[in-house]
């Protein structure tokens, strides 16, 4: 059974005049690292909301088709059922934090689900360690930097032991080093077996971690596959996706008849390919 299945799913928000998602058909399996990208307004956030039933149960509208998350139909089960399956992390951590300290923040979700106090203590300590939050224990969220707030928000989400982490532009308010730190944590969680669905525009930062990239445009999936294959397509430039600089150089060389073989995703990969080409 797939972890997430979109079965010909379409959605139109109440009052909107066009569909936000159009006949989406796909499956996402355990352990995958899927990056969703595409122009702003193409439906990425709506896609994330559909995974954990916020669409259509909280954000209402016209629905066709179904989404099954962990085998459960998102139209037929309560939103709360999905909180412990798909953990959502948003762009703006300050809108997500509800309590005043780190331990309470992490404990909040499991407490609401009635998890035993001993187990909650255990999870809190494990997550403080995993996300390196020891020094923040005593701090209020407004005394933390954006990167620190986002680490706390991720810890709070993971406290529910979700099977998939759904992160919607989690680094867009962060400085580059904090962004890299968050993305490293996400890649690490994926290596430990957690599936990841990440919305991101800056493919420079994430293409190398992803096992799959899904390109969306105007509510549809227009490409879905291996990051190197997808980013080599001209479609990316046509719809305005930020292709990594190293990949752009590769493409420009290709139009001038220089074929480097593999599609590079990072500057270092590009340099290695050039070096290999000279020693051939």
């Amino acid at each position, binding site marked *: 059974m797939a972890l997430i299945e979109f079965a010909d799913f379409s959605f139109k928000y109440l009052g909107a005049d066009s569909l936000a998602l159009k006949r989406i058909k796909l499956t996402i399996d355990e352990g995958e690292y899927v990056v969703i990208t595409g122009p702003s307004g193409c439906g990425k956030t709506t896609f994330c909301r559909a995974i954990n039933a916020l669409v259509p149960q909280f954000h209402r509208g016209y629905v066709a088709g179904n989404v099954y998350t962990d085998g459960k139909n998102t139209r037929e089960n309560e939103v709360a059922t999905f909180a412990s399956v798909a953990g959502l992390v948003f762009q703006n951590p300050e809108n997500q934090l509800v309590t005043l300290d780190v331990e309470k923040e992490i404990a909040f979700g499991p407490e609401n689900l009635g998890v035993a106090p001993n187990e909650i203590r255990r999870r809190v300590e494990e997550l403080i360690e995993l996300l390196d939050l020891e020094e923040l224990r005593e701090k209020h969220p407004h005394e933390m930097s954006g990167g620190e707030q986002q680490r706390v928000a991720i810890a709070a989400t993971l406290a529910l032991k979700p099977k998939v982490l759904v992160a919607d532009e989690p680094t867009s308010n962060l*400085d580059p080093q904090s962004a890299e730190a968050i993305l490293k944590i996400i890649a690490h969680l994926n290596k430990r077996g957690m599936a990841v669905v990440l919305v991101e525009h800056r493919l420079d930062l994430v293409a190398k971690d992803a096992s799959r990239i899904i390109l969306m445009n105007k509510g549809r999936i227009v490409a879905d596959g291996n990051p190197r294959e997808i980013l080599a397509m001209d479609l990316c430039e046509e719809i305005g996706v930020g292709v990594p600089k190293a990949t752009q150089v590769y493409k420009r*060389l290709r139009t001038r008849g220089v074929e480097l073989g593999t599609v590079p995703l990072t500057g270092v990969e590009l340099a*290695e390919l050039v070096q290999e080409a000279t020693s051939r």
Partner: protein
Amino acid sequence: MIILEDVHYSYDGVYTALRGISLQVDDGERFAVIGANGAGKTTMIKHMNGLLRPQKGRVILDGQDTKFMSVAEIAREVGLVFQNPDHQLFLDSVKKEVEFGLRNIGFTESEAEQRRQKTLASLGLEGFAERSPFTLSGGERKRVALASVLSTEPRFLALDEPTIGQDAHQKNQLAQMLAEMNKRGRTVVVVTHDIEFVIENFPRTVAMADGQIIADGSTSMVLSNDEVIERCALAPPQMTLAARALRNVFPEVGQRLTLLSELEETIIGILGGA
């Protein structure tokens, strides 16, 4: 001209968010402000339009100490787009949101409508006029906030992280709009973490850390300063990493490659021409 003179500011009386900021903004220039989260960028830019007032030091607008000016008076000259659009948008349609500012500074109804249409179109928001900002995607909301200020085309434009949530195409659109306004004599200040956006669009960069300005000068000079890279929590651009890795093997590769076309030519050179 805006001059910040030894500006200090603390939100809570304990931590000092700005510790002696001195900065001159000349008419008609455009520059970027960079710095790690919490460096004080937002606090500083809010001083430029009088939303925050210095607790020590002065802000001088066109020779006049802003202490004696109201926020409304300053805002007529200096338009600020907030980092978080949720703090800026309050009306129930995009149309009202954008026309509000225009009507406020004295445009007639039909002028306001014309400007609103033009600005929304330049930002890829045609067809959004009747929508409620609360039903928009994050990136769309950000562009409505931009539109409400850009449409009034104030003499000074101060934009706090305008590229958040925007795709490559929209970033280019925005850059183009700012360049046009700058050509018409508007002064543009942009706070951003997007180093490529800075390199491609801004000749001057101001780097902040811990409430102070640690570098101010030409973008290429500021960004080649290692202390700036470290304290502003920047990650070296992929182009720099590529150039560095190439230089290890091919010593002829230059020290400072930043542009895509330069790297392309260098590689063609290494591979012995195409």
